[in-house]
């Protein structure tokens, strides 16, 4: 645990010392939030749109912005720098658990996305968005977004470990990008076309988005929230196991 925290603190220092990397992580999701709400907000008036549950369209779109921000992790690119610079070998030559190596830097991603999610929620408040599930719901939202950031960045980290190349890692992370859009991104799942509904149903990100959305739009809907956390838990275990195996077999 000591070693895990030592590596986490290093990751957090790394994030704080590269503030320029934070700008796109905040700006691009905010940009999409503003553009999507600007383009479709009038199509879905709060009073006449059932899936908004009395809130406005910005509240419906906020989870997409948060998920997008959580998917802009830089952990994998820092890992490539460590590999190229030889520091990764230095870490591997220590008796530290491989799980700590995997999770240490990802903890910094979690901390980063907690801060960014807070900023995004606060930025949405003046536009009439509120947390229908209250303070507990807000903390659950932070936990969901932080856990998703860890899982997503962990999978991109896996690409970094396999490819050892910044270009391949950056390109590889785009493979995950469509997952964010094969979701009930603009309307609720029951309003999607049949093929999109099927795709969204098989897409794990859908359940995380719906869990986040439920926390913003309605009171604590434990079944929906539980599905979101269950998806993250399964993906998280798979991510850690694959990363640890890759590091152990790393030559």
């Amino acid at each position, binding site marked *: 645990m000591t070693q895990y925290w030592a590596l986490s603190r290093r990751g957090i220092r790394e994030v704080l010392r590269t503030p320029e990397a934070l700008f796109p992580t905040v700006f691009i999701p905010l940009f999409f939030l503003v553009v999507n709400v600007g383009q479709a907000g009038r199509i879905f008036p709060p009073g006449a749109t059932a899936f908004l549950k009395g809130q406005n369209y910005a509240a419906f779109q906020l989870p997409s912005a948060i998920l997008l921000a959580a998917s802009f992790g830089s952990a994998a690119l820092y890992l490539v720098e460590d590999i190229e610079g*030889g520091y990764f*070998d*230095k870490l591997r*030559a220590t*008796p530290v658990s491989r799980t700590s190596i995997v999770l240490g830097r990802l903890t910094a991603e979690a901390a980063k996305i907690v801060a960014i999610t807070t900023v995004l929620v606060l930025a949405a408040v003046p536009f009439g968005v509120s947390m229908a599930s209250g303070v507990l719901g807000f903390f659950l939202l932070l936990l969901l977004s932080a856990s998703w950031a860890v899982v997503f960045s962990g999978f991109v980290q896996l690409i970094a470990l396999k490819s050892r190349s910044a270009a391949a890692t950056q390109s590889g992370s785009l493979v995950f990008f469509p997952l964010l859009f094969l979701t009930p991104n603009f309307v609720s799942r029951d309003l999607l076309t049949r093929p999109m509904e099927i795709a969204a149903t098989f897409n794990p990100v859908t359940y995380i988005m719906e869990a986040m959305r439920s926390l913003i739009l309605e009171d604590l809907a434990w079944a929906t929230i539980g599905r979101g956390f269950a998806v993250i838990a399964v993906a998280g275990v798979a991510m850690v196991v694959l990363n640890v195996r890759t590091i152990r077999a790393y*030559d």
Partner: protein
Amino acid sequence: MASAVEAEQLVKRFKGRSGTVEAVRGVDLQVAEGEVFGFLGPNGAGKSTTVRMLTTLMTITSGSARVAGVDVTAEPDAARRGIGVALQEAGLDPRQTGRELLVLQARLFGSSSAEAVDRAQELLELVDLVDAADRRIKGYSGGMKRRLDLASALVHQPRVLFLDEPTTGLDPASRLTVWEEMRRINAQGTTVFLTTQYLEEADQLCSRLAIIDDGLIVREGTPAELKADLRQRRALSSDPSLDDVFLDATGRTRERIAGQVQEVQ
């Protein structure tokens, strides 16, 4: 005397698109505790691959290796506790300060927070980096980075220190500083396993040498023994240099023709 490093029939094969490459083809090594052991060889001979296998950084295809009395495959973490590693690339995190890096390294080897801080300070003094300790590493010169890398390999007072070409790319003054550090570390009882391409360095520092070529050990002995052997085999009138031993061992000869140096395979 007990062995600090023992390798038996160490083999490393890499599978690539163009087939299987055997980088190390059955290396046997015995390094006694307290030695400075030189591991020499031309580029691509298998030096770094051997070192990476001995330091748990690379899987072993076949054969076995024990370092600091521990089987590196069976008990890699226990082996890591007895090994210090400074590889060809000074493995440093440019965004951290020198002090942060050493404290973190000490924590990863199990030191408490207070112990890690004290050990970092001790090592910063040892490698003369106290003034730069709280600056980010990205601003360090090549020599400073190399000294910090050496310090980071020593945080847990390893029994065996592996140095893979530690002076490559350094200016003569920095090189001499690293040599002094190496002697000091060895005088404190640490076994040093040094790979280098600089034969003068090996001659100055190493009590015993092995020369690897094409994945196999082709010579082994003290520098004096290796020179005497060549002198006897070639019936030379004076002792050859270690350069001559190296060229002889690796099947290369140097001929001076019309003022030019040619290497003939």
